[in-house]
């Protein structure tokens, strides 16, 4: 492999982790920054997995929340300590799952279980085209949500009640590491021969088929892999939230992830990552002041009250959707080279003029 290229990609990532480590050691752990970083990393993974499907394979699926739900539940069910089960499954006599597995195994299991569900769902659903596919996957997500709340399944899923007391992460590095590895795998996949086949399907299904690409198999593959990572994202989300409840995995969650993908640029992995951190930071942190009634002197700033943050936020989202439909990155990827080129192009000229002047 090209050494230079390796350094150029691995270097910044290593730096990022180092920076995180230092931040964690220096800043108080209660800073909102860490909340944003944790949740942002999780959403980045889920957004990239959705991008694999929507942006790279051209399958417009809206089932992400449902798959995250499966992942989150799998993780929760497998890791709640035995001594806590009696309390968690209080209405179901401690539940019927009577073993626990290590955290990393549970995360992998979350992905695998989700992938199996996705495979089964994909069999009928992937024959549908564009918006019909979207609405069918949305429907499946709703069905999954209902099934997981069914009290007959209570001994496993705890019915509609919260799952809690499972191990959660203590360091911001953990979600970053897991999400980072997963995103790296997705990137490798996208740049592989299969990734090219996915892109071919996105560009022109009929031509792709004429090139010998088995549509059903490849769509199924993309759908299952994407769901695998959505499941892992779900498991991480469970760890972040410290509790899991099926009721929270509504279509709104899928819409938010979709909007992240759109803001980042459909077909750009780095775009999705950047956008998810921006999205989470705006909605959880930076725009929070809009929700508080604020006085400047005796003057009450108009409009500011609970919920205004979301209005401002959705207006920003609409502006991006309408006027910058390519998102932050379009289909391009972010890299140091590209950044350097960008600045050179923008500011190179002025510099020359300075010299001349």
């Amino acid at each position, binding site marked *: 492999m090209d050494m230079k290229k390796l350094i150029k990609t691995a270097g910044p990532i290593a730096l990022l982790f180092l920076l995180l480590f230092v931040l964690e050691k220096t800043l*108080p*752990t*209660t*800073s*909102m920054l860490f*909340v944003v970083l944790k*949740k942002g990393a999780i959403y980045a993974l889920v957004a990239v997995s959705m991008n694999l499907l929507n942006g790279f394979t051209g399958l417009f699926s809206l089932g992400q929340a449902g798959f995250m739900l499966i992942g989150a539940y799998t993780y929760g069910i497998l890791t709640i300590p035995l001594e*806590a089960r009696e*309390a968690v499954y*209080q*209405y179901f006599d401690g539940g019927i799952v009577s073993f626990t597995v290590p955290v990393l195994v549970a995360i992998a299991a979350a992905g695998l279980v989700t992938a199996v569900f996705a495979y089964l769902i994909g069999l009928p659903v992937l024959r549908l085209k564009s918006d019909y596919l979207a609405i069918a996957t949305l429907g499946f997500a709703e069905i999954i949500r*209902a099934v997981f*709340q069914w*009290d007959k399944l209570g001994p496993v899923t705890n*019915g*509609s*009640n*919260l799952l*809690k*007391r499972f191990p*959660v992460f*203590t360091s911001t590095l953990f979600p970053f590491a897991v999400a980072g590895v997963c995103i790296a795998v997705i990137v490798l996949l996208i740049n592989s021969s299969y990734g090219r086949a996915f892109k071919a399907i996105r560009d022109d299904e009929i031509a792709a088929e004429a090139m010998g690409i088995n549509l059903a198999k490849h769509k199924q593959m993309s759908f299952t892999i994407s769901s695998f990572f959505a499941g892992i994202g779900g498991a991480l989300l469970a760890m*972040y*939230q*410290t*509790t899991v*409840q*099926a*009721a*929270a995995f*509504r279509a709104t*969650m899928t819409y938010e992830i979709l909007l992240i993908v759109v803001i980042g640029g459909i077909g750009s992995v780095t775009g999705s990552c950047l956008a998810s951190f921006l999205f989470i*930071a*705006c909605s*959880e*942190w*930076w*725009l*929070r*002041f809009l*929700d*508080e009634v604020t006085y400047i002197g005796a003057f009450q700033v108009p409009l500011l009250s*609970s*919920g205004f943050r979301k209005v401002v936020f959705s207006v*920003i989202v609409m*502006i991006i959707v309408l*006027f*910058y439909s390519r998102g932050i990155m379009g289909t391009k990827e972010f890299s140091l080279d590209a950044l350097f080129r960008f600045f050179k192009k923008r500011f190179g000229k002025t510099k020359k003029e300075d010299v001349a002047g």
Partner: protein
Amino acid sequence: MKRVLAISLVLCLVGVLAAGCTPASQTSGNVIKIGVYEPSSGDNGAGGKQEVLGMEFANTVVNTVEIGGKTYKLELEIVDNESSNDKGPSAAAALVSAKCSVVLGSYGSGVSIAASDVFKNAGIPVIGASCTNPQVTLGNTHYFRVCYLDPFQGTVLANFAVDNFQAKTAYILTKLGDDYSAGLGNYFKEAFVKLGGSVVEETFQEGNSDFTAYLTTAINSGADVIFAPTSTEAASLIIGQAVSQGVKIPLMAGDTWDSSVILDAAKGSDLEVFVSTFFDEGDNTALGSEFVKNFKKWLNDNPDKKNNNGGNDIVAAVSALGYDAYMTAVEAIKKAGSADPKAINEALWDVKLTGVTGDIAFDEVGDAIRNVAYIKQANTTDASWIFVAIQGVE
């Protein structure tokens, strides 16, 4: 056009960033922050707002505390958990990052449980005002509460149903995925079955607005009482549709229904609605009547507060609990003699005070020891509450 838009967008973002990065309010030397983790929007928004009112009012009554000869100002840091278990933890994190010494809340047991670990990890004690599910405090050393618990409340209501209506069959309607609703429904069922009754149970989903089918099932099952421990949002739908279907069976619910929303919905009908609650406006203890009088005055003096109370000056039980939770926190801070969350947490175990809702002292789980509940009936002609009985458990 596009460029202007782009530039303005970027400017907005930068501005917002600047605003976000500079901590909005630093803990200066003489301020102790008390976090308020309550819903002011969503399903439980109406109730949450009333609970906050109690705390805000308490803050006007006692807004300083003296520690070691130095006077500290008490400030409320209020966040909205949106009644949502998935939005709650972020709101809680905002309180943690604002360096609150102690947190009050929340209305709604689900959100309280959901954020519990966030506070636990930060080492901040929390005092729940009206979250009645046992799971909130069970197994935690940082979560306390000033109200009674659902097993108690469920038993009280079951007793009441049997004593007053000679009920044999109860129809229980709970909301899926709502800890409060499921828990209370469950405890009611247990107690009711123990008393020799039988139950028909159904659940509804988030966002459901059609309760006619449920009510029909209730009628068809020959139930003597309908027990529906739900949020006020669902409650107004259930009541409205019960009225239009001409339901003659008495409706019963827990503390959440003690709200003017219920009164408005039932107004002008001949529906019988009973609720159990923590506090009654007609309370005749010195402390209670004093609180009612001053709280009403405060509401009437502040139109926007009155608005938050649903536009009237009826004192909700949760406001009284909010008041008591705040006072408990103040007491703990005094006892700890410091603004350090850990010290306050330690001190809370030994706090004893007489609140407007009765005596408050915590047991080994962190729950206030309570033994009575107030039962009230909705007066459907003038939209007010009629005090029915003080019910305990034998």
